[in-house]
Structures are given as structure tokens and as C-alpha cells.
């Protein structure tokens, strides 16, 4: 259990700002603003990881989500024609709400259903090396499967975005 007053304060501050900016992502009209709020959300989540003294995960969170994923989102937004950037009256609103509600229900159920045990061992001293050992000895198969999946996704994305005319032009 977290007992330190300072850490509790930090947890609530970071948590509040994360939740608020996550709400703003859905609320703001400007897509670029939404992406920027998303960056704040990601950084806030990283802050929560730090509070939980999972520093490796926190840094990976910032590096991958705030640094890379958000950049991809920026790319996606910039490649969208200006006219299509409205996210106000989209027909996906109702399904998205339903989906979000279901997801919330699942998460809440999991939270309540899990038997939260207080870790018997002390704090992680070096999370990076423990993570590395975990990845490469007990969880090596899921790890490798995930990387294969990512490679497949990357190849698929490349094939999807390749212009057919361009391809024909190269062949000619």
C-alpha cells in the first residue's frame, strides 16, 4: 500500500490531470488540440508509473506513447484534409459511447473482482533488469509472438499505403 503522504498527493494530482486531459481529448473540437491533450494524458500515465516506482515502464511510456504514437497521430491528422477534421457531428458518436461504456464496465469489474494483494517483496530496485529477465526467461514466447505480430502489422501497413499507380509506375 502506498502510505507516504507525498506520494499519495502526487498520485492524486497526476491522476486528476491525466483523467481531465483524457476527457479533454474527447471533448475538444480541434483534432490537433486533442492530440496534444493525449500527449499530456500519456505523460500523466507515465507519472503514475513513476509513483508506482516502475521507472522503466514509465520511460517506455513517454518514449513510445508521448514521443512516437502521438507523432503518428499528428501525421494522421495532418494528412487529413481540413474539411474532414471536424469530429463534432460524426455518426460514430453513439457506438463510441456504447463501446466506451462497455470498456469502463469491464475495467471496473476487473478492479473489483481482482484480489489485490500487497506485494510481499520490497520495492523494485532495478526494474529494467528484472523486466529483461522476465521477458527472456518465463515470458519469452509471448514476447517473441508480440514482436512477430508487430512485424506483420508493419508489413501490412506498408502494403496498405502503397499506391497502386505508383507501383505500376515503378514496374514500367
Amino acid at each position: 500500500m502506498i502510505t507516504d503522504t507525498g506520494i499519495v498527493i502526487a498520485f492524486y494530482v497526476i491522476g486528476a490531470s491525466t483523467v481531465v486531459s483524457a476527457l479533454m481529448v474527447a471533448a475538444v473540437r480541434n483534432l490537433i488540440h486533442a492530440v496534444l491533450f493525449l500527449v499530456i494524458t500519456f505523460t500523466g500515465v507515465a507519472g503514475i508509473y513513476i509513483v508506482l516506482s516502475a521507472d522503466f515502464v514509465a520511460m517506455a511510456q513517454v518514449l513510445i506513447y508521448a514521443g512516437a504514437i502521438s507523432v503518428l497521430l499528428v501525421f494522421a491528422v495532418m494528412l487529413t484534409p481540413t474539411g474532414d477534421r471536424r469530429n463534432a457531428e460524426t455518426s460514430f458518436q453513439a457506438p463510441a459511447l456504447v463501446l466506451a461504456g462497455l470498456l469502463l464496465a469491464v475495467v471496473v469489474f476487473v478492479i473489483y473482482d481482482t484480489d489485490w494483494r500487497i506485494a510481499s517483496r520490497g520495492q523494485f530496485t532495478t526494474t529494467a533488469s528484472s523486466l529483461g529477465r522476465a521477458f527472456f526467461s518465463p515470458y519469452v514466447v509471448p514476447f517473441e509472438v508480440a514482436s512477430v505480430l508487430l512485424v506483420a502489422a508493419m508489413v501490412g501497413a506498408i502494403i496498405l499505403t502503397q499506391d497502386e499507380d505508383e507501383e505500376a509506375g515503378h514496374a514500367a
Partner: protein
Amino acid sequence: MTPRPLTLITDNWYDIRDLSNLSGKIEELIRDANGPHWAVWVVSALLGAIGIVAFIGGVAIINIWIERRVVGRMQSRLGPNRLGPFGLLQPLADAIKLMQKEVLQPKAADGLVFSIAPIAFTVPGIVIMAVLPWGRNMSLARLDVGILFILAMSSLGALAVFTGGYGSNNKYALFGAMRVIAMLVTYEIPSVLALLGLVLFSGTMDLADMVLFQEKFWIPLVLVQPLPFLIYFISSSAELNRTPADLAEAESEIAGGYHVEYSGMKFGLFYAAELINAVAISAIIATVFLGGWWFYKLDELVPGWMIFIGKIYAVYFLFVWTRGTLPRFRIDQLLAFAWKWMTPMAFANIIVVAAEVLIWDETGASAGLVLPLYIAFNMLFAGVLIVAWVRFMGPRFSRFPDRLRYFDRIDVPSLPAMRAPAPAAAAPKSGSGAPARSASEGGGDLRGGRLVGGPRP
């Protein structure tokens, strides 16, 4: 995160060789006085923050002067030399001028985004300073994942540049923003891979431990890992927007790029942050490649943080040098360079390093035997890769007689229009045919910029 036991070099708090003595003393005082335990954290954090911010303030001021003087010398001029001794007060005057200037904001700009960008751009450079080992015990925040932290923070800076470019609502600024995003995606990969090789070799992601590794084996890692040094230097100069790759501001193309609409102190922040980021990246290179505060036995005589700062400025000089020397790449050339050269080379390097580490671990050979071998092999490897790449994958120009022709006379029929017509287009290169055809080839050939043969004055 987790406080480490303080091991002081000496017990004297006034020993300037390690400024952590002073803060350690203060912490001891608080502990002795039975102060609240969080006070130790707060006080040490405050002390470190004050130190780093003071250093950064000085850096931002002095680097303007250094950069302008050094580039001035490179450009065969003096640089600022009027205000104060050697023009040292010039940056202060500039700062005062920038503060006095009105901060203009375009009417159609995205107000909040426009205002937040310079601040967001400044923060990562400052935060990076916190994890650097300034001396043997002088890390404000000694992270196990220091290198990851650095990479994460430097990727945020590019996002801030994008924010500024987008918020300005200016076409040039948007070009700069798009370029910086494209460059971020491209250059993140080789720079991460380059540092990954170091992490593999030294077996730690903690910056202080990396310095200790170099101290232990008495070797700066740049010798063992020359290729990652080149890759990281190039890709970080792209991340820093410095000249061979300053595409995001590209003065001569997009007129300043992302900060074209900024004025007053907002521009000043961008300007200062650029210098701070340059120093931060120089500090990273100094730490992981050049051995940080360690320099053979010198760190027992001279304060380690002074050696560290000296190394920072040595690397910083390299950045200024390339800025003063090289023209700019085009964006597609730069991205192609990253994808087609730096990324494959970085992967190749990781394979080599992994093999080397494995061999070292398995054989258990002594460092004195293994390291010189590795140095020789890695240098050779880097050289061969670079030369091979230039030979086989270097740019090909479609028509490349890289020389000029010289004509010392233009001969024509003596009575034009009264003579038989010239045969049309004898040589395909010369439109009207005749001049190139009838002129005698004299002089010499220009090959590689040198005149070979031919009568010269």
C-alpha cells in the same frame, strides 16, 4: 527514485571536487535535527534544481557568445567584440533587447498552443540535465533507466517544435513543423539503436554506471564504439536542428520555419532552448562516449564536474564546427540518409556488439587483451562500412561528366549567311550544334575541382 547511500570522496563539505558533499552535509544536518523525512527530498531536489537552472542560465548566455565568436572566426570575421571585454556582454544586451520587444501573435494563431510551445521546447533540455552524472556522486536523479529517460525527453522536444509551427498558423511554420515531425520519426530510430549498442556493451542503462564502466576499464567508449558515436552525433544534430540538418528552420528555404512568427522573449526562449538542447545533447555524448567526469587520473586533481563541462564544450564545439562548415541537406536526402545508411549501420553495429559481449563473457578474457582487439576491429568495421556504403550506395547522378570544357575561341564561318548552312545539331549536347562542334577543345579538364593538364597561366 530510490535514494542511494551517499559515499563521499572526502568528508569536507567545502571540497569543491564534489559538490554533492555540500548537499550531503545539509541533508545530514536535517537528519540530525530530526526534521521530517520528506524535507531531505525537498531540500536536495531544490538544491539540485537551483544548481542546474543556474548552470543553464549561464549556458544560454555564454553559449550565444561562444557560438558567435567561434563561427565568427570560422567565417573570417571577428564576431561581437564591442560590448564588454571581448564582447562578453553582448548576449546580455541581446537578452535585454529581446525582453523589451513586443511579443506579437498572429491574429489567426492558435493562441494557447502558440504560447505553450516555447516553454514546452525549453523543458526537455533542462530536465535532461537532472539525470546526468556531473561528478562521482553528483546526479540529481540517478535513474536506472537514464538513457531511456534522455531519449524520451529529447523526443518530446520535437513535439514542442511541431506545436509551435502548427500554432503559428503560417505556411512556412507549418512546413517546418511537418519537417520536424518527419525527422523525429526518422532519427529516433538510429539514435536509439546507437545508444543501444552502448547499453549492450556496458551492461547498464544508468548513466553514472556507464561512466564508472569507462573508469573501470580506462577507456572512453567512443574508441570502442566509433560507429554509434557517428550515428548518434549525426542524428542528434538532426534532432537539434543544426546546420547539416536544420531543415525545420531552414533560413534560406522556409525563412525560419517553425519560429518564423515568434518575436520578443518567445523567440528568445526558442533561441535559448536551442542552445540548451545543444548543450544537453553534448552532455549526453560526453557522458556515454567520452567518459563524463572521468578523465584518467585527472579527476582526482580537478573537480569532476569541471572535466565534464570541458568535455561538453568539446562536443559542443563539434556542433558549432559542423554548423559553420556544411551546407544543408534536402529533406528527402536527409531522410534517405537516415533510413538507408544510419539505421542499417546501427543494426549491424548491434549485432557486432552483441557478439563481442558474448565472446567476452564466455571466454572471460582479460579486458587488457579484449578491449584493444575490439577497438581495432570496430574502427576497421566502421571504416569498411562507411567506405563500402559510399562506393556502392552513394548518390548516383544521372549525367555525370564532372568537368567542364574549355574553349579558347568560337570559330564561325567567315561570311555568315553567304555560306552553306551548318549541318544541324552535330553534337546532341549543343542545341545549335555549331559552337560546340566547331570550337577547338583547349585548356584542360576539370576533374574533382582540379585542373589537370593544359596550359595554365
